[in-house]
């Protein structure tokens, strides 16, 4: 709740009008002006022991960069952030700040916390506009070659850290664009693609080679990579969509959120027929799920012209794992929410979708995630008319790479087993991190994993050049809060 006293609430961030924005793909939030940023930065107490920093998975020096903004030294602000976070323009927009830095902020006890995310975004955007973000000095070439598989936030961060240390980096990416979920999943109106492209260009300018259309496990095997390179990092994400397993799921007009968003974002189907890829523009769109993915899908459907777009979620609003800000935006845009509701059947007509049959749920005993388990209410079945259904109930590990790789330790669910501190897998010189290790999580946790692996790979390469190979002990796994933020629905 914004307090009455200005000191108690964040400076509001300018946004596109909800009525206008629900029919365009431009970014929803417009960002602070320098004046707003300086004013918001002025709210920070500059705590001597800043608890916000502890809440940030990559420990951005928050009070320092906020102080620089307050003093109007925006370059200093972005330089400070970039030391810890290679993608601040992305993180400022998509991190769940309310669960991380801002959740810890001292001001949050009495009113609203400092708008750390918005300030981070301001510093990053300002830096990008004035072209002084690219501070990266590279170390002398080491002659070592590292391969990175997957160009999502985990792979990009690992590449960034290693190239700065003088190693030669090649990224293998299956799709025709780099960025992983940042490109194909998170929509333009929340994360403009030009920002992702800018960051990827920065990497290219630093000498990172990106090989697109390279599906590792098909075009080239991990074993071949291990022969050619001194070390390898796997950051292939958790890209395999789950379906519900109910009747009617194979009808036309039933999409996985991945397919719907990939068509819209990666293939720009919202600009069909200027762009060739089609997408079904439903009149009444039902999205099943409650995470960021579901909210992105429903808001995309709205922008494609749906008269009604709704979320069907089996728990209540309080349990929704999506970012608060996005739920709030979705509501303002007119998205309908059916909480405590679970689909049991999709009803078809002429090969397409006519309605979703659902049951009402109530919350029972807490489940292992600590959230109360939803259980169906008796005799509560009812139908929601819809012509498009989008399934956003989570993802699994894509088995393509693991299946084609010998001696790679996997857990029961098919995720790669890797040391939480180093990313070390069951094979020497082979590291992994991000969603392919943790299951679907967050951008920043994937970046954190990429960074830790980079550090470990650098140590490994050093030890290798002196012919001393020190294998980390997989038993010495320290539970890491960040990597455990599994976004289970």
């Amino acid at each position, binding site marked *: 709740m914004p307090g009455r006293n200005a000191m108690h609430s964040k400076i509001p961030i300018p946004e596109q009008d909800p009525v206008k924005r629900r029919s365009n793909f431009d970014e929803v939030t417009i960002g602070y002006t320098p004046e707003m940023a300086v004013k918001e930065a002025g709210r920070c107490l500059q705590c001597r022991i800043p608890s916000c920093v502890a809440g940030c998975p990559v420990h951005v020096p928050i009070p320092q960069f906020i102080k620089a903004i307050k003093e109007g030294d925006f370059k200093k602000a972005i330089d400070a952030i970039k030391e810890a976070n290679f993608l601040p323009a992305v993180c400022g927009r998509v991190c769940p700040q309310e669960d991380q830095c801002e959740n810890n902020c001292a001001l949050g006890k009495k009113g609203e916390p400092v708008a750390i995310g918005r300030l981070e975004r301001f510093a990053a955007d300002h830096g990008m506009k004035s072209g002084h973000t690219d501070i990266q000095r590279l170390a002398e070439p080491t002659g070592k070659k590292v391969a990175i598989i997957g160009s999502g936030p985990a792979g990009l961060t690992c590449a960034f850290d290693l190239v700065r240390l003088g190693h030669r980096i090649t990224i293998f990416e299956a799709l*025709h664009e780099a960025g992983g979920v940042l490109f194909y999943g998170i929509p333009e109106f929340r994360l403009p693609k030009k920002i992702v492209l800018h960051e990827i260009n920065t990497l290219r300018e630093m000498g990172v080679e990106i090989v697109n*259309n390279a599906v590792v496990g*098909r075009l080239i095997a991990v074993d071949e990579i291990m022969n050619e390179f001194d070390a390898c990092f796997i950051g292939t994400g958790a890209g395999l969509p789950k379906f519900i397993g109910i009747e009617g799921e*194979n009808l036309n007009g039933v999409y996985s959120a991945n*397919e719907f968003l990939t068509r819209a974002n990666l293939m720009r189907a919202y600009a069909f027929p200027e762009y060739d890829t*089609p997408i*079904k523009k439903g009149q009444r769109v039902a999205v099943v799920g409650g995470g960021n993915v579901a909210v992105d899908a429903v808001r995309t459907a709205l922008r494609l012209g749906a008269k009604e777009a709704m979320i069907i979620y089996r728990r209540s609003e309080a349990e929704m794992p999506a970012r608060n800000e996005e739920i709030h935006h979705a509501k303002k845009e007119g998205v309908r929410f059916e909480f405590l509701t679970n689909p049991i059947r999709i009803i078809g007509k002429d*090969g397409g979708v006519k309605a979703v049959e659902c049951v009402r749920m109530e919350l029972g005993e807490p489940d292992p995630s600590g959230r109360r388990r939803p259980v169906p209410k008796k005799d509560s079945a009812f139908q929601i008319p819809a012509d498009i259904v989008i399934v956003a109930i989570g993802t699994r590990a*894509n*088995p393509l790479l693991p299946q084609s790789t010998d001696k790679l330790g996997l857990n029961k669910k098919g995720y790669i087993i890797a040391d939480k501190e180093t990313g070390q897998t069951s094979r020497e010189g082979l590291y992994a991190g991000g969603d392919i290790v943790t299951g679907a999580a967050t951008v920043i946790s994937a970046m954190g994993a990429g960074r830790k692996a980079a550090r470990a790979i650098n140590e490994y390469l050093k030890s290798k050049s002196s012919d001393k190979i020190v294998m980390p002990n997989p038993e010495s796994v320290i539970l890491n809060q960040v990597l455990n933020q599994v976004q289970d629905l």
Partner: protein
Amino acid sequence: MAKILEKRLIRSPDVFYYKIDAPLISKKAGPGQFVIIRLHEKGERIPLSLADINPEEETISLIVMAVGKTTSEMSTYKAGDEILDLCGPLGQPTHIEEVGRVILIGGGFGVAPLYPIARAFRSVGNGVITIMGARSKDLLIYEAEMHYVSDKVIITTDDGSRGTKGVVTTALKQELEQNGADLVMAVGPAVMMRSVCETTRLFTVKTVVSLNPVMVDGTGMCGGCRVLVAGQSRFACTDGPDFDGHQVDWDILMNRQKSYLDEEKESFDAWKKRHAL
């Protein structure tokens, strides 16, 4: 970027052969696999089967039937032109082993992937009989090539203008009755593959089909290519494209292939208008 080294019209006016420079893919690909191409920045990703694989030359070949916007646009590309994105090899290669007598059936563009598949079956010691069908003799493609890699080629045409009059399943039935087979594989339009499966079911011959649902990424990420096989949802791009034809839910496949009929027409019409066709 992938360069087109050679292009030929192999059936007027709409079927083209392309030889494409693809050093790495040519070394890795196996029969039955496919690639996904994107012609240009605004293009869609479409799957195309490998019609030939030549690692010495470092090339792959594609046979493309112009049926809509993207395939027609590709037909305007010439030798020397470049395709923006070429991704592959995708899918699992066809399982090749010595079983004895193998009947291969191709229809439409399905004849393209049959060439490397036939060669592979034969190279491990199988007898290979190829059955190819078309409405009339002018619509047949790749007949001469299939002779190189088959022990016997049977042609059927609906109008009897060449080979046996009738459809491929007529010839298939005859062949099964007279000589039997240890394995049948069909590649082509879903209706054709389905009737092949109906025929072979009567003879209880194992039948492999290569499914062609609409695809986007080809890496298992979108699920758009899902097909129902033996009651299980499978992704054709990563689990397939080959499946046991007797287990495939053909209605779902054929319905899903029609998902974008309106949009495909809109896109094709707009393109034809721009090109004054």
